[in-house]
């Protein structure tokens, strides 16, 4: 329990250890801890940002979905309209075609009738001539009388 040189020895070693700690231990540890602190802060910030991004993306997705639905509805409506239009058009065309066919058929019939009339006329002329020949008993000069007969036939 005597005070002696140990006192000074202890003071010197105290200064040495403090210096050592200040030089080699403290700054290195502090740097590492500050770096980790920064890392954690960055990580938290990134997580925050990701959260925000997710929220934004969800909002965007919802919006896009709604837009798509609207578009789809518009397209369907348009298609419906177009379909009815096509049906209408087809109907009109069918009616027109029917009319055309009817007209053609009518024309054909008329032509046929005309042709038959023509034929009949020829035959009537010949028949009239033959009848007249029989009645008259003599050959009629066909060439001289055909005009008359043909005129007769044309009046039928």
């Amino acid at each position: 329990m005597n005070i002696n040189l140990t006192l000074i020895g202890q003071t010197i070693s105290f200064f040495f250890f403090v210096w050592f700690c200040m030089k080699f231990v403290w700054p290195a540890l502090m740097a590492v801890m500050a770096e980790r602190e920064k890392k954690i802060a960055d990580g938290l910030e990134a997580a925050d940002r990701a959260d925000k991004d997710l929220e934004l993306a969800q909002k965007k997705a919802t919006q896009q979905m709604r837009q798509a639905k609207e578009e789809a509805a518009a397209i369907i409506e348009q298609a419906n309209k177009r379909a009815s239009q096509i049906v209408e058009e087809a109907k009109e065309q069918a009616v027109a075609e029917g009319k055309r066919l009817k007209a053609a058929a009518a024309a054909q019939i008329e032509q046929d009738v005309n042709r038959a009339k023509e034929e009949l006329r020829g035959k009537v002329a010949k028949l009239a001539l033959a009848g007249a020949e029989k009645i008259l008993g003599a050959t009629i000069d066909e060439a001289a009388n055909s005009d008359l007969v043909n005129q007769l036939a044309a009046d039928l």
Partner: protein
Amino acid sequence: MASEGLTQTGYIQHHLQNMAYGKLPAGYVRVDAEGHQHVLEQATWTLAHTSQEAADMGFWAVHLDTLGWSIALGALFCFLFTRAAKRATSGVPSGLQSFVELVVEFVDGVVKDTFHHSNKLVAPMGLTIFMWVFMMNLMDLVPIDWLPLGAQVISGDPHLFFKVVPTTDPNATLGMAIGVFLLMIFFSIKNKGIGGFVKELALHPFNHPLMIPFNLFLELVGLIAKPISLGLRLFGNLYAGEMIFILIALLYSAGLIAGIGGGVLQLGWAIFHILVITLQAFVFMVLTTVYMAMAHDVDESH
């Protein structure tokens, strides 16, 4: 328990004596273990064999055990913390690194709370003091006869003095307190100038020329009291703690029942002592930081 034939007083005294290495003057009469006397013909550097010899060595002696253990523990602190610092990564810390970072963060927090100036020395000094004092105090928990007995067996000297707790030696605690004191004066003068430092001593607490001698007396006593109270607080707590361990150890030689009682007591006191050693290390660190802060406070108005 120590060797037979040792009285209880002798046992206690033996445990309280450091291993002193110093100079005995010429003509000094030494008494060896068998009671023979012989006179030293010339001044000799030697280990003290008795407390009386240690006392007669005066100031020019060193306590090899105190210095040895404190330097070894300080070196261990440096080694552990340097290793942790070198291997430290900013990733997930583990093992030694987390312990070291825990301590560093704790000390850093305490220092930041009490010390608001910019000084690169104070926080590492707080860490050094805390860990070093804590480790020196921790030696108190090693059963008190193990290491001295080991040292006696190794050295072959059954009367070797060997104290393992440096902080139970006032030289160690006052030595550190003197270190703190020198830093305190250094930073005071650096921050306030010699004039400012002297003014602080001379013009407080009574700012009047007539009161200067009174002020000086008061402030100087206050100034000197700081390192002394700092060192003696630590020494007193640890010395008392070790004393109780020694007294408990005495029970082991007093029969089976007393021995078992002693074991229980030692366990209880050791558990309680864990608090004391941590607290004392903490107090030493905090007071050092406070003194440093006082040395940095320039425009202090009372």
